[in-house]
């Protein structure tokens, strides 16, 4: 875990505590990056004139003009392919794929081209694009607007996969991604764009501004890739999560009075395995929570790593709470969603052993 960025917060608080939700923080990161570097270009469906369906690019076209913030046709393969070419020639494209569920037509370009360009040109050419895309469920979007396909990308060598869980992180991580010389998939958990989610869908969402993680400093700052965030400290067990589930897990532990070492992974590739290892060695118990389907999900990789590295420290089997191995349903969303009940049961099971 990096110590530095948690210490940045008080400094930020001194400057009048500007509070943003995640959408505004992402917008701010794009703004800051574009202001610093003329090579940064924002593109995608409805991102320019309309300002993005979730408003993440609002106002950017007005500020930076149509050559730097532009609408594309609805052709995801083309969007990513063009971004790879732009990146190879020295630009830093930040294409938006409107929903992660729409990214699949661009997979060939991401896997065969973007992820492999550096390797096959022995480092002569790179693909420094950052593909932003809202992902995850909990918004009643059904199977084509709710998926969490992160494990498809973590499986591809040559790609980085980053998932913020707070406005502060979203800004700092996105700036890092844009400056990174490798292709990055930046998945934005759309369920928590406006406020953290407790997992209780029938309770109103609390806006971000009520939480300290919404204090987003003006201007430039980065959060390094590959560093997890310590959400809470505890000795009873380690919980690994990212995106929306960080907040669900935190709420469950608070409600149950469980003192957990909750780690928000922030970046899946590169992974902060040292922090994970240190935590599990201390607690001896590990729960992994993600929204994506279970089989070959990123939790499987985490479970294997924890078992390989911390086997002799484990006092209970590693547990996973995940989405079921089904398409994301239209109805029954809350039966599918790995919510407080399933997480609570898994915690009880781990602590009992």
């Amino acid at each position, binding site marked *: 875990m990096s110590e530095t960025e948690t210490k940045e917060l008080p400094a930020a608080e001194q400057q009048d505590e500007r509070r943003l939700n995640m959408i505004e923080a992402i917008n701010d990161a794009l703004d800051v990056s574009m202001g610093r570097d003329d090579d940064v270009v924002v593109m995608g469906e409805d991102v320019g*004139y*309309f300002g993005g*369906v979730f408003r993440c690019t609002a106002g950017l076209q007005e500020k930076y003009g149509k050559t730097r913030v532009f609408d594309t046709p609805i052709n995801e393969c*083309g969007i990513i392919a063009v971004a790879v070419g732009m990146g190879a020639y020295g630009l830093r494209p930040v294409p938006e794929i409107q929903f992660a569920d729409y990214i699949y037509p661009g997979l060939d370009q991401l896997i065969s081209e973007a992820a492999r360009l550096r390797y096959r040109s022995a480092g002569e050419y790179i693909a420094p694009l950052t593909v932003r895309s809202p992902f995850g469920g909990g918004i009643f*979007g059904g199977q084509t607007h709710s998926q969490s396909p992160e494990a498809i990308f973590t499986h591809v060598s040559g790609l980085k996969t980053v998932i913020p869980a707070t406005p502060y992180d979203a800004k700092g991580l996105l700036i890092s991604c844009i400056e990174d010389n490798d292709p990055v998939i930046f998945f934005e958990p759309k369920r928590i764009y406006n406020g953290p989610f407790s997992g209780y869908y029938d309770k109103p969402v609390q806006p971000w501004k009520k939480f300290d993680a919404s204090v987003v400093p003006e201007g430039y700052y980065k959060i390094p890739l590959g560093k997890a965030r310590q959400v809470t400290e505890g000795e009873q067990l380690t919980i690994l999560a990212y995106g929306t589930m960080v907040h669900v897990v935190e709420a469950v532990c608070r409600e149950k009075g469980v003192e957990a070492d909750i780690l928000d992974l922030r970046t899946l590739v590169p992974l902060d395995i040292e922090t994970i290892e240190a935590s599990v060695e201390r607690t001896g118990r590990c729960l992994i929570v993600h929204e994506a389907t279970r089989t070959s999900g990123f939790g499987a990789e985490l479970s294997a790593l924890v078992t390989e590295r911390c086997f002799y420290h484990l006092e209970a089997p590693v547990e996973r709470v995940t989405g*079921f191995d*089904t398409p994301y349903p239209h*109805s*029954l969303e809350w*039966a599918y969603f790995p919510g407080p009940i399933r997480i609570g049961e898994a915690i009880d099971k781990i602590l009992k052993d």
Partner: protein
Amino acid sequence: MAKAPRSKKAPSKSPVEDSDFILHSLQDALEKDRRYGASKEQLLHFYEQMLLIRRFEERAGQLYGLGLIGGFCHLYIGQEAVAIGLQSALDGDKDSVITGYRDHGHMLAYGIDPKVIMAELTGREAGISKGKGGSMHMFSTEHKFYGGHGIVGAQVALGGGLALAHQYNDDGGLCLAYFGDGAANQGQVYETMNMAALWKLPIVFVVENNQYAMGTAVGRSSAETEFHRRGTAFRIPGMDVNGMDVLEVRQAAEIAFKHVRDGKGPVLMECNTYRYRGHSMSDPAKYRTREEVQDIREHKDPIEGIKKVLLENGSTEDELKAIDKDIRKTVTEAADFAENSPEPEASELYTDVLVEEY
């Protein structure tokens, strides 16, 4: 011994050998006589069906506002003449249809019970996809309706496969593959057009050009906004159709379907239409003016258009009002049904993932 192919037809010749391509101007045939000569009975039926779509969609919008329909919901209001004009010309026993996510109207055009459609929108067990598909993902094997697809443009390529199966089975059917002006820019649409022309597949590609790809006007995302021209590179004849006039759409369907059924290969039809509501329910519609929408409503509304024809042909205002009243009742019943049906059992989560349960 190798099994004989199901189709007795000789494999089609390459389109390159068709020196008459330039003469396949289906547009000329349409311009000779733009409007279908419907009987009074047919006119009334068109009116009823279009009005049913309108009232159904208005109610769906209300249910969305009440939170009974969640997530994504794309209304067909304004585009009614396209689905009705085209689908009324289908051979119901043979032909297949596939479309995108704005699919409520295409379902209703088949005469499918509005109750099971509305119950799908509210995600209930009684819905036509057991509540598992939702607004964007509805199907009917009975009618050879292959869905409702949420991924923009993906259904067009599936339509190519449906057409190939029609050809393979030599069943005389054709596939009607709808997509929007936004979807028209997806690469797979053109892969499909090439294959369809190469193999002379029985498919009618229909671009429902409602002028906006979500929040982006056609001119801002498309280099060629005359979508009917986009088949030319593949030797697919195009038709430019007023999609706000059900009689013109029906006439165009007659011409296009005959061409396809005669084995001459695919047709690309552009129906120029307009959606009155937002792209989906969460669309603030800041990309166009209220005046623009109002102008279309006042001067080009497809239902008002057919109503005018009916009144000229001897129908009375009272007759038409009675029809509206019946339709409102049907829609209210559908909404009540959709609201009061139970949600699916949780065990439904794991059904129909693969053939075998596991």
